[in-house]
């Protein structure tokens, strides 16, 4: 019956779906942690960067960004906009050989660290 105090003008802290401490790390997370710790993730990122530059993917994305920025006007575009617009196109246009090479590298990494 007592009125709720609205002394704090801020939204309530979000509910966390699951209790963090009890959550079992997923396989994906375990792999991710292992890759970061061993430095493999950084190496793979460098390799991916190199391949995507070589095959012209990065230039392609650059020109897509430029075209979008020209259309909207330079002052009406944020980095977030660009990321949202480019991400699906970028993911879709990664050449298959590049994907294959990265997957192969990840596979061999997993094989070498199999417990």
């Amino acid at each position, binding site marked *: 019956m007592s009125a709720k105090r609205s002394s704090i003008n801020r939204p309530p802290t979000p509910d966390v779906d699951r209790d963090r401490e009890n959550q079992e790390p997923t396989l994906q997370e375990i792999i991710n942690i292992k890759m970061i710790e061993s430095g493999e993730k950084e190496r793979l990122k460098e390799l991916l960067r190199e391949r995507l530059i070589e*095959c012209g993917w990065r230039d392609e994305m650059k020109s897509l960004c430029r075209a979008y920025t020209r259309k909207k006007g330079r002052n009406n575009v944020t980095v977030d906009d660009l990321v949202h617009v480019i991400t699906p196109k970028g993911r879709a246009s990664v050449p298959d050989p590049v994907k294959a090479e990265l997957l192969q590298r990840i596979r061999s990494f997993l094989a070498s660290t199999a417990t």
Partner: protein
Amino acid sequence: MYTNPKPCKHLADYKLRHGLSGYNLLQEQIRTTPSGKSSVKNHQTEIPRCCFCNGYQKRLYLCLICSSISCSSHTLLHSQCENGHDIAVDIERSELYCVLCCDQVYDPDFDKIVMLKHLMDLPRSGNGVDVSAGRRSSKRRRLCSALELDLKKTKQLVSMRDLRAKSCYPLGLRGLNNLGSTCFMNSVLQALLHAPPFRNYFLTGQRNHEVCRKRSSDRLCLLCDIYVFFSAVFSGDRTPYSPAQLLYSWWQHSANLASYEQQDAHEFFISVLDGIHENGVKARNTGECHCVAHRVFSGQLRSDVTCMSCGYTSTTYDPFMDISLNLDTGNCPSTDLANKSLKPSDNTYVSTLLGCLDLFTKPEKLGSDQKFFCENCQERQDSVKQMSIKRLPLVLCLHIKRFEHFPVRRMSRKIDRYMQFPFCLDMNPYLSSSVVRNRFGNRMFAFEGDELDTSTEFEIFAVVTHSGTLDSGHYVTYLHLKDQWYKCDDAWITAVEEEVVRASQCYMLFYAQKMLYYKANEDLVCQPVSPRADPFLPIAGCC
């Protein structure tokens, strides 16, 4: 040049309240790589996760005030929970981000902190980045030298206005007779005739051939012959001229090329400039040469070789009189045949001059057989080489390599591929300052050689084109004078539309610094048609 973007209100507020303290604390956590990238890492961020959703797969941002990490979906939430926590840094990229503007923001103070970290981490004396702002004096000397070649003096030469003439053509337009497969020479001479500072030098009497020591002792002097040639072409006489004396003089200098066989225009160009240099006043041993060839055409290239292990960069500078470019074909250089390029096949990709220049300044991985001995690592390492232009000349000659050599089959082939080229060219992206800046993420930082007062804009004034095969072909030059294009085909000169020029197969492109080009055109007073002959029906030459 660019201007620094204005900070958003939130960044400005942050700076007022916290100054540089946040940046300075962050500096210790920045990790740099030899390739020029930087990211934020400390024990907390080793496996960075969003404090709201525990996610690790999106872009992650570190709050500059409380160092809490949020993913791109939750940065706003963090800002709502904590008042004033509006500025964050992208962990992966070391870039500032304003949560409320949802956009990247820029602060020279921040970029300075990042660059200083790079400089601290890279091996000293060998990082490719020099912050010193020296070399002002040589710049001034060069500018004065350019002014000497100013067109003001040429105004005195301009005269002879025939009031009866109805039509008029620019001064200095005169056909050149072919003396036996000499179109390679005629085409280059037409371009030289209209290179603004080069032309001014000869027309303003700076070449005083009367006191030339060589001529007085009856020896051949290439410079005098060029002077005579210029006088003849700019005399107002429209009948085609035979540059026989000049040809003979050049043969004396380049005995190996003395024949009636078809020669390469580019080779002739280099040879003539070399002849001018040799014949000219002996310059001092150190410093820049002051012969007209160097003053007009010489620039400086920078070559950086970077060790991929430690980032140590070895930088060398070399002068150039022209730049030879490989055609960009859109093929990816990857040796792995399976790696297909995103770009469509050869049939639809159009080569452009900018594409060729991009290719020229692109970082190139040196093969494993070319491992570079790194001074810092004290062993041979895989490395990357990158070219850039340290200093632009007054007149830029770009040579397109239109030949392929097959050493195994011992044959050469001409590449006929069309290349698109612009009439206005901004060389800024290919300067060393731009290229080096790009290596470190385009940070707002005073890199060496940021020459803010020299122009990088060029206007085209001549195009030497080639048609035919390597062994038998024909050179034609297009000249751009006073907004009109002229085709110079040996003795025949005709006005043409710019579409014709754009569609031509260019071999050598001549660009002049914009200011010089416009001044030169102002003073090209029309010369009335000589009553003796119609310039469009020249006396038949022996072509």
